[in-house]
């Protein structure tokens, strides 16, 4: 059977493109960020109203003008437990510069259990009781931890799925604090 040489060339080119694309995406995926998250970047963070553990009604808009680290977590999530003390430190360090860490507990545990969990980890930032609708607005939150970094202008700077290093988290915090700063200065 005689093969058309141009088909072989085209197939080889296509294979090369797929391999290059695959390697590129594999490198990108070493720092977890999903497609939905990429689409949310630069977009206004979905507004929400949730109850905090201490019974207060909290709106995302309450934090406008601050860099927000919005962390979706659950009591059954071990990686969440690792990064929460880092958030405590970051809140202490960058709070004076305008950082606000906000935790959203997305599990069926009772508020008492969530409260105990947070207290054991020394959480020094508001923890809100999550709702499915809020999770949906943020892309479904199919796994945890999931963290959104929101600039001072209320736009999503980055979204990270899964546990990443403390230094990567800190980089994102700096980005969130820097983003929208010009807008603030103009006001």
């Amino acid at each position, binding site marked *: 059977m005689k093969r058309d040489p*141009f*088909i072989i*060339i*085209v*197939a080889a*080119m*296509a294979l090369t*493109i*797929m391999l290059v*694309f*695959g390697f590129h*995406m*594999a490198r990108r*995926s070493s720092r*977890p960020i*999903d*497609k939905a998250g990429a689409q949310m970047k630069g977009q206004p963070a979905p507004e929400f109203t949730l109850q905090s553990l201490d019974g207060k009604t909290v709106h995302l808009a309450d934090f406008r003008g601050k860099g927000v680290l919005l962390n979706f977590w*659950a*009591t*059954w*999530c*071990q*990686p*969440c*437990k*690792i990064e929460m003390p880092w958030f405590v430190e970051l809140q202490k360090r960058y709070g004076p510069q305008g950082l606000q860490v906000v935790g959203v507990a*997305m*599990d069926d*545990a009772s508020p008492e*259990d969530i409260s105990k*969990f947070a207290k054991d980890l020394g959480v020094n930032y508001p923890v809100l009781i999550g709702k499915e609708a809020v999770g949906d607005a943020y892309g479904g939150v*199919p*796994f*945890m*931890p*999931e963290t959104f970094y929101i600039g001072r202008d209320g736009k999503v700077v980055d979204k990270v*799925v*899964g*546990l*990443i290093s403390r230094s990567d988290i800190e980089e994102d915090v700096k980005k969130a604090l820097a983003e929208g700063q010009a807008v603030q200065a103009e006001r």
Partner: protein
Amino acid sequence: MAYNRTLISLLIFTSLAISQDIPGRKIPSVTMSPVPLKTVTRGKPTDIDLRFHISPGFHVNSNKPNSEFLIPTALKINAPTDIVIGKITYPPGQEASFPFAPDEKLSVYRTEFTLGVVVRPLVSVVPGKYMLHGELKYQACDNAACYPPKKMPVDFEVKVVKGPPPHRRNPAQSPHVHG
């Protein structure tokens, strides 16, 4: 002509390459091996093994995780009336540490695990095949993230048979006296 064909083919292949799913997170899955029909005798307890497989790269908590907040793997079987489900045996978890908590040992199942279920039909059960239904609750994680607790259906069939006729002892006989 050949140039056009090449260009069209290249465009098709390129769009196929780009439309490949962006490598992201895989979703964990736990599956159960088919359970061969097991014959169980009325009135007698019979052990049935249920073998579960966890997709590569994931783990689930064992039945006795090392933290009160972690969700244990647990099986619940709803049996028909007169078929008693006895003890469910869980294997001990593997003590493992993960990149997200290198200093902490978690008790987990990885790759596969087998649960033992004791089934005992009462003597009143009509012999025949019975389907037992239940669900396995588990919560999976990979090396960086955790997935919400899930329940998977667990179904298996047993064939209930009559036990062997009761062994009758010969009634005590008075010694024959041969005169």
